[in-house]
């Protein structure tokens, strides 16, 4: 690499392209080679091989780095990321709350991390107890009849819940005629995607002017062909669905089920039980409400709680307890299965640690604080920003739209990028679709008042700047991030999805 190319005309350019602690980092394919390794092994003798002609003989092309180089490479990469630990991460719907380190420590106890899903059940009684205890918490907090623990994330939980609903209709012989699923247009994309994947027909329900789902709209769409409704509550506008109980009644009256997207359960945990609202199935994103880390995109966990009516349609495996301990039921007639093993044990340990730490009281207080924080953000921003649904109190997130940016030339995206320059992760943008240029702010309970005030003050400043016509700050943003704005169109038009050159060629260069 010739680093002179980093030198522009100004004195402020550096030779390396680095800027102090902001260090440029190549790909492993540009620094590794085929010989180097950061892992030593003893006793790799010649040894007889039983593989014969099936042995892989060609060069794979995988770069290796020594341990010091590897550590440095990934530490450097990490420093290009924003995280909860860097500051407020107000992505609406994503619930970026504090991830306690105790949870990480517990998940790494050999008694949890170093046990195999298929070792004799007598040797994993503590693990089964843990899953059972967590299940008990989930059932109690939701007021439901049972829980399926295996789903791997929220969307997988939706799959689990909707599979049960379809199975129930199949069992009652109505599946042939009940294929419609009502989905409000504010729903998360996973809702319609899940329904469609399972052969349901998605029937969209328009939101009322106040951002909630109206009973009339549901009634109008209801019929003998409706299998279920997928409702998010609190919904993706951050509002508690005021009609949820009557909607549930209407659905049940019409022979349909109510699936609740529980991504926003963190607003009501410990305060309101979905089971009391008429919900038949709901997934719980442990990585949202119960704080297992998001990990830059996963892993999560999405256990699904069920009403009595759907319990018997839950997939395998399930854990049962009898006189001589816990048992995993892995086979049972034609039982459905959604994943190879018993679910996200590593996440279960973290979630239970979180719950036991908070206790019932702490869980309720966390919900209250989350709601308080969102309302505080909303109250302090409402005069400079615009709200699509200003009439109802919000729950754990505050939704704004881009009306306040009208005629400024600044878009929601520009606004978000300017927030990056100010040291914040932007809120969720352009979701939900029911708000124009949506900005969905979820502060979570983890933010202190001081942190919220700094965030709010900066947001107010930016809103005022936009209205003052200081557009450059927005259009050029981000100016201070590791990268300026990235060309997403180019990425999609001419996809480069892997390092192209085979490693040998590089070595020869």
């Amino acid at each position, binding site marked *: 690499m010739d680093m002179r190319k980093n030198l522009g005309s100004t004195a402020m350019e550096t030779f390396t392209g680095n800027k102090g602690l902001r260090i440029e980092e190549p790909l492993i394919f540009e620094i590794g080679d085929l010989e180097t390794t950061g892992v030593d092994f003893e006793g790799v003798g010649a040894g007889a091989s039983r593989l014969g002609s099936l042995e892989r003989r060609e060069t794979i092309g995988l770069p290796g780095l020594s341990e010091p180089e590897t550590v440095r490479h990934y530490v450097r990469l990490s420093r290009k990321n924003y995280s909860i630990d860097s500051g407020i991460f107000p992505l609406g719907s994503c619930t970026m709350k504090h991830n306690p380190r105790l949870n990480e420590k*517990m998940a790494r106890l050999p008694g949890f991390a170093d046990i*195999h899903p298929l070792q004799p059940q007598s040797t994993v009684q503590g693990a089964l107890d843990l899953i059972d205890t967590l299940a008990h918490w989930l059932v109690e907090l939701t007021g439901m009849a049972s829980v399926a623990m295996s789903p791997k994330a929220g969307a997988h939980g939706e799959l689990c819940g909707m599979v049960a609903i379809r199975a129930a209709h199949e069992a009652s012989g109505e599946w042939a005629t009940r294929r419609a699923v009502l989905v409000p247009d504010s729903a*998360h994309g996973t809702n319609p995607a899940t329904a469609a994947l399972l052969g349901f027909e998605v029937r969209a329900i328009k939101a009322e002017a106040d951002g909630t789902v109206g009973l009339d709209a549901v009634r109008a769409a209801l019929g003998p062909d409706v299998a279920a409704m997928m409702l998010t509550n609190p919904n993706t506008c951050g509002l508690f669905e005021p009609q949820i109980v009557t909607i549930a009644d209407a659905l049940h009256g019409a022979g349909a089920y109510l699936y609740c997207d529980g991504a926003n359960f963190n607003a009501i945990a410990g305060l309101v039980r979905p089971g009391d609202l008429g919900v038949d199935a709901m997934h719980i994103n442990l990585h949202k409400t119960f704080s297992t880390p998001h990990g830059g995109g996963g892993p999560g966990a999405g256990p699904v709680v069920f009403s009595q009516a759907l319990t018997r349609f839950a997939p395998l495996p399930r854990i049962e307890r009898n006189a001589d301990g816990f048992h995993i039921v892995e086979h049972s007639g034609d039982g459905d299965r959604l994943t190879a093993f018993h679910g996200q044990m590593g996440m279960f340990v973290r979630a239970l640690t979180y719950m036991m730490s908070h206790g*019932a009281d702490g869980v*309720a207080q966390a919900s209250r604080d989350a709601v308080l924080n969102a309302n505080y953000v909303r109250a302090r921003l409402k005069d400079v920003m615009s709200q699509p649904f200003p009439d109802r*109190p919000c729950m754990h997130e505050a939704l704004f739209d881009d009306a306040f940016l009208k005629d400024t030339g600044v878009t929601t995206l520009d606004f978000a990028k300017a927030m990056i320059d100010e040291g914040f992760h932007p809120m969720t943008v352009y979701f939900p679709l029911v708000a124009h240029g949506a900005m969905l702010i979820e502060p979570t309970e983890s933010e202190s008042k001081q942190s919220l005030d700094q965030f709010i003050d900066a947001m107010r400043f930016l809103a005022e700047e936009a209205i003052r016509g200081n557009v450059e700050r927005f259009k050029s943003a981000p100016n201070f991030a590791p990268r300026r704005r990235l060309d997403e169109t180019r990425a999609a038009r001419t996809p*480069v999805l*892997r390092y192209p050159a085979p490693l040998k060629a590089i070595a020869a260069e």
Partner: protein
Amino acid sequence: MRYLPHTPSERAEMLALIGAASVDDFFADVPQNKRLRELPPLPLAQSEMAVERALGRMAARNMAAGSVPFFVGCGAYRHHVPASVDHLIQRSEFMTSYTPYQPEIAQGTLQYLFEFQTQVALLTGMEIANASMYDGSTGAAEAVLMAHRITKRGKAVVSGGLHPHYRDVIKTISHYSSNDAALLDVGADEMPAIDSETSCVVVQNPDVFGAVRDLAPLARHAHENGALLIVVVTEAISFGALKSPGSMGADIVVAEGQSIGNALNFGGPYLGLFATREKYLRQMPGRICGQTVDENGKRGFVLTLSAREQHIRRDKATSNICTNSGLCALAFTIHMTLLGEAGLKRMAQLNHSRACQLADALEQLPGVKLVTPRFFNEFTIETPQPGAAVIDALAAKGVLGGVPASRLFPERSELANRIIVAATETVTTDDIAAYARALKEVV
């Protein structure tokens, strides 16, 4: 409560500013009779010390793999993961960040995803890979749906050597996802009949019994009949020793990536690897990271081709997946980078030779028969007694000796006396001797 920053007076101040009397005001939309009047009947808050003690006691009631001679596999493998891997994935910036929706401040995540995708493509011998699935089994089901979309056919043929849990996941998803879907089971070594409705053949290599085979003839057979070959791999270390699925003609490769970088974790979280041919790119499920440039022309990475995904395409998406296995993919990438080509091959070789040593030792015991002569690091033996009883007896002696086939195939009585046994680089000569000794006493 240590995780909640507000003091009571701050809460009061905030309520005052909002103009609310109490937080209850915000719950006005919840019907009065649906609000809990009391806390749910669950324990109250506990100190870190108390929680640590309680969980420590639960953990102590499990037999940790590292504390005994350990030979359990069948889709999850115990390997040594260098300490630096776990240290690095716990960096706040990796662990506590979200899916990289704002690429300018998520280049760390995006660059490792790009590295990951490339590594997966190289290992599987395919052209492209996505940014991960939940695990191997859900990836396998997604692969079948993808084959249906590509071929516009609705039937999958599943080889008998496929892990039965994988088969059940495919069966469940196939059943519900498409009204005319059907699943045809064929024997592990059978060349299946492929009709005009068959979209794909799903085969595992090494199969669930540990047997390895050349898939090229099967690939040819599938392709000649307009079907795709989906290859499932549950032991990713085998990529370092066995001909790649790509080189044998696979169209989609799905693998469980746990073996590289990730702990056993009692079954999860794991890591689905998903790779295919470039021509099928737009039918691929899941997130994909791509290279681009920023306004200054500097290389950078973004999530791309999201027109396939649920958040853009909603009910027309290729999959409903959203959260995937990001941090497990990071662990995989770091471990794979540490290994490099040389290390992976050495590790694979060591796995194979340990397994050969073990097979030799067990085969010598009277009454014990090796059923799978050609294997990588896992094989099947037959014992005079039911496998489940043998495994329980071994466990009582402090040896975790494998998986009785009856646990996976309770309905197949012909497998009742079989045990599937794995040996990785973590197995020592002493462990092998201990196994042989214990098994001798048991059979």
